[in-house]
């Protein structure tokens, strides 16, 4: 049986050059589906990765009770003092989170640039932050440092330039990286200066705290709940960013699967048409083999294998196009806090494998029906070429 499958498949493949045009329809059709699917999912994966990279298990964000993002949160100095005094908190930074309209490099349209006023502890809490160009801001000066993603996406935030915000001129004195995380989409300034310029004296949006251990988060949450002076919630940083990215990630993935599904229907019809044509062109040949004693199953298997091989080729082409065309491509979108988040498309090995699996699935469906027809057609009818 396996020998028959091998022999008939070999014959089919040797026949391929005479059907190059129709066979390429499968390759192109399925390649397109896989390319689009992988590219869109790479966008979701990149966004998710950018958000999740910012979260660490020993870091937490403290916000006003009921707030779902830093933009809608607010805390006073009293609350900051209480949280900062707890022994489980080894470092704390009160942070002011704002957005400002700044033109995008791509089309000059105004988009929300995230501005974060931070205390010096912010750098200790986030050791991944590194100045890669220029220097850090000086306390008390209207200076800012910009993340690499913000520099890539926005006009006027490159090192050495100045930017007008709230009737004040800010100088960008350096650029930082943050391991590719969402922080790279922000510009940072000294907290006190930002509070003054943006008229938020004494108030912050949230606090970033480093915990003595990840388990301390539960202890502190319970303490906040029990303390009547505090209307705060503490959320692990990784959990916070996960919730921030979840909605958009789900939206992108749903869109990706939707587009891929529509394209897949077209690709399946293309594959069906191609394989029906291939089988039809070889009706007499297949019937002759069956007359000589080759079984129906090897015929089915050979047609399916041919479709699968063409689909695999298409999948590989689509995956390659997605990888070389999109992997690492930096784009930005509106994140959970109404600010632009810059991120890179991430065409991961898992996505490539997933795309190939889709291709195989499409090839299987596209090859199965013509294969079964070829095997079930009465030999006497097929020998007449009908």
């Amino acid at each position, binding site marked *: 049986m396996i020998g028959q499958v091998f022999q008939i498949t070999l014959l089919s493949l040797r026949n391929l050059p005479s059907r190059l045009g129709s066979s390429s329809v499968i390759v192109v059709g399925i390649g397109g589906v896989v390319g689009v699917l992988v590219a869109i999912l790479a966008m979701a994966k990149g966004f998710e990765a950018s958000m999740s990279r910012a979260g660490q298990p020993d870091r937490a964000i403290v916000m006003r009770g009921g707030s779902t993002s830093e933009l809608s949160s607010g805390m006073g100095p009293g609350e900051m003092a209480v949280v900062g005094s707890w022994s489980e908190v080894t470092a704390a930074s009160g942070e002011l989170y704002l957005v400002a309209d700044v033109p995008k490099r791509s089309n000059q349209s105004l988009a929300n640039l995230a501005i974060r006023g931070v205390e010096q502890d912010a750098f200790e809490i986030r050791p991944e932050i590194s100045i890669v160009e220029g220097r850090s801001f000086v306390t008390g000066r209207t200076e800012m440092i910009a993340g690499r993603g913000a520099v890539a996406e926005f006009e006027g935030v490159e090192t050495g330039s100045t930017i007008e915000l709230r009737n004040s001129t800010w100088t960008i004195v350096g650029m930082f990286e943050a391991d590719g995380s969402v922080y790279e989409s922000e510009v940072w300034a000294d907290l006190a200066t930002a509070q003054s310029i943006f008229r938020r004296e004494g108030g912050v949006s949230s606090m970033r705290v480093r915990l003595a251990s990840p388990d301390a988060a539960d202890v502190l949450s319970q303490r906040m709940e029990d303390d009547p002076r505090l209307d705060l919630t503490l959320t692990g940083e990784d959990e916070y960013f996960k919730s921030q990215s979840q909605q958009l990630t789900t939206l992108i993935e749903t869109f990706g699967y939707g587009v891929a599904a529509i394209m897949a229907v077209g690709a399946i019809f293309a594959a069906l048409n191609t394989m029906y044509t291939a089988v039809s062109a070889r009706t007499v040949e297949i019937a*002759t083999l069956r007359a000589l*004693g080759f079984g129906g199953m090897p015929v089915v298997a050979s047609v399916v294998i041919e479709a699968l091989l063409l689909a695999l080729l298409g999948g590989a082409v689509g995956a390659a196009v997605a990888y070389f065309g999109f992997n690492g491509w930096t784009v930005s979108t509106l994140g959970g806090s109404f600010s632009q988040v810059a991120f890179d498309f991430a065409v991961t090995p898992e996505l490539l494998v997933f795309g190939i699996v889709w291709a195989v699935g499409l090839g299987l469906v596209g090859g199965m029906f013509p294969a079964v027809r070829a095997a079930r057609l009465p030999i006497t009818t097929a020998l007449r070429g009908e």
Partner: protein
Amino acid sequence: MPIVSLKEVAKSYRKGREVIDVLDGIDLDIEEGDFLALMGPSGSGKTTLLNLIGGLDNPTEGSVVVGGQTLGDLSGKGLARWRSRNIGFVFQFYNLLPVLNALRNVELPLLLTNLSGAQRRKNAQTALTIVGLGDRASHKPGELSGGQQQRVAIARAIVADPALLVCDEPTGDLDRETAEEILDLLGILNREHGKTVIMVTHDPKAADHASHILHLDKGQLVEQAA
């Protein structure tokens, strides 16, 4: 004991609501070593009868016994295996695989055996030599004349050494001279190699090469001539 024995064989097809009777009440015995020509007008059921004997189709009624095997007892898979061992087919349009050379085409039935690759090729080469095409082994069908292609098809039919050759209009696509060569070849296979040959033909001159001629008309045997 006849090599082929048909008892009250009938075959009908359904075309939409209409039932078309192709064969009706066929009783036929064909002795081993016979060279039988089946003649008759178009639609008389010649090819259908040949297909039943070759195990390519099943009768609606009656039994077909070939080489002691009742074909109705075999499953589809079993019938395919039986055909590969017992029947050599020769078709009007040769039915060679265009991507394979003559040797590979002849080798095809042997792929269903346990023979080694070397032995398969040796047997295929021998079959090609028998039909006079030993020097054309590497030629693809497109590089051969019609007569040569039919010789390759005959080599393919005999390579597994079946007892019975069923030939459907084997000279129908050939000129007279080439047709005579093919018919002579079938005669040699019948007389010198002991093959039983059953041949469907429209051509009385082709039928003259047979030792027996059967006439079919409207699905029934109407005459049996020696």
